[in-house]
């Protein structure tokens, strides 16, 4: 493996780990969502490294993962948008976006 994809393969793995930690420990859903996006971009970067490895002259990368990535980024954005709107509506109606069951938090 050349130097380029190795850096861009190990760092995404670490990003996935860091984001997963944030998803577990943050009590505020908005912070969980940021962590989710970090995990997501880690997975996407990993796919990017895979695409770069699959370069074949004259292409600089395998176009199939690149196309899947565009789909994946748009889907992840929609998921984030839905979650953000849920957070805001929950906040409007209860003033507390905590995820813990009522009366037991």
């Amino acid at each position, binding site marked *: 493996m050349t130097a380029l994809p190795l850096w861009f393969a190990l760092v995404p793995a670490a990003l*996935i780990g860091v984001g*997963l930690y944030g*998803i*577990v*420990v943050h009590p505020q*859903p908005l912070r*969980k*969502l940021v962590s*989710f996006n970090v*995990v*997501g971009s*880690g*997975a996407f970067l*990993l*796919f990017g490294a*895979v695409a770069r*490895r*699959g370069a074949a002259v004259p292409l600089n990368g395998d176009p*199939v*993962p690149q196309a*899947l990535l565009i*789909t*994946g980024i748009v*889907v*992840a954005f*929609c*998921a984030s948008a*839905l*979650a953000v709107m*849920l*957070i805001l*509506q*929950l906040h409007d*109606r*209860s003033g507390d*976006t*905590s*995820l*813990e*069951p*009522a009366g*037991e938090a």
Partner: protein
Amino acid sequence: MAADALLPAVVMVPFGGALIAFALGGRWTRLTAYATIATGTAIAACIARASLADGQTLVYHVGGWHPPLGLALTANALAAAMIAGVAVVVCGIAVFAHRDFGQPHAVREARAPLVFWPLLLAVWGALDLAFVSNDLFTLYVALELLTFGGVPLVCLDGRAETLRAALRYALFALTGSILYLAGCVMLYGAYGTLDITLLGARVRPGVVAWTATTMMTAGLLAKTALFPLHLWLPPAHAGAPAAASAALSALVIKGSWFVVVRVWYDAMASAVTFASAQVLAALGAAAIVFASVTALRQPRLKLLVAYSTLAQIGYLFLMFPLAFDATGSAIMHGAALQGGVLQALSHATAKAAMFMAAGLVYAALGHDRIADLGGVARAMPVTTATFALSGIALMGVLPSGAYVAKKLMLDAADASGQWWWGVVLKGGAAFTAGYVIHVLYRALRPNTNVSVAPVPRASELAALGLAIASFLLAFAGTTAIGTFDLGGTLVAVGGGALLAIFVASKGSRVPGVALCGDLDRALRRWTPASLFLLLLATAFGVALKAGH
């Protein structure tokens, strides 16, 4: 060839209908939904006929492009059975929801009916896509579609607590999807394709295959809510309107479950091990015991039914180790998988009926406190019968879909020498009987001064119809029903009755029951549940590596 072309149609008709129903709005939404459901059900019936009766596996190459570059849609007998079963449940839900989700006359357009019908159709399309797609990335999109359809259904009534449940569901499911996607990425990197058939031929055991399998499985289990990853399910399914609960509990969780089946049986068959399948089934067995006991301690009917779903999800994972041959070396299609799919279908029909019955009780009484159900049996005989029938169907003691499913799995357990799962399968019926009897005992108590609001007759009949459909599935089984096992039935019902009386009367003083309660409180908090998600990912990795 003609039958193959039904595969894109069975996906596109519900989605197209959802878009048109949404665009037309107002009174047209429900009409469009009905037209779509009629068309989609006809297509599902044709697929079932081609695949089940004629025994052919349908294959369709979208755009004429073949894998690995293109996308293939496939439907074997199992997928066709799921498609047909889901179509039946969707029809039942549509009839049930007719009154609840019609546009009121006072306004031009109200929110809930406008979003309910497109979401129901989208969930349907996403499920069909999950059943027919042969590409792991398309399956990822299908699972996301399912989540995007499911989350708004959870909080359709807009109360803060249901929004909270929906948010919890969304965040946990999204975490699951991203783990699944990461697994797909690694598979593409190693094998250059995401086509399930090609992967099945190319995958070799190794660190990439193990890591990918473990991450995909953990992510999918989070979306399926298998114990101990169920934190989002009880409040989400119990808080939604009855028709939405039925769709969520009967249908939505089956999508990610079916993807687990595709990954384990087809894509990663050479990487999964006997040990890892034992872990999966052990979680299933734990789900049956834990969720059934917890169900008995629930004060409200809809929560009880939601916990019953958790227990039934456990059954769906018992068939994984049973599909290994006697030497435990390879996972194979066969009786165990057939039993699993039949179990999924009988749960889909029975659970939809059960949630509808619970919803009707709530609508009639204005509450669903189990302790105050007295007099319901007399006031609502059809609904009470529906609840009883769906409960008996879930137990699988009388000839029904679940009965045949259990028989298939028991045969597989015998054939592969895994007697311990046979014990769980037989004993599980008593746990199911426990909470069904618990409810029926309360409902059958006389109470003359119960006031009952009228409920739509069509809704009652739709629920009853689905409960009966769960019994009719017995005839869909490939094996003969066999002799009726009176002894087993009596043991199950008797054991269940004892369990119900025992837990209901002195539950909190018994260590095991109290433990289930504490465990439930702990597992419904985010941090323990998400830690378990990561722990499971690790455990599967170890079990996969150890098996080789």
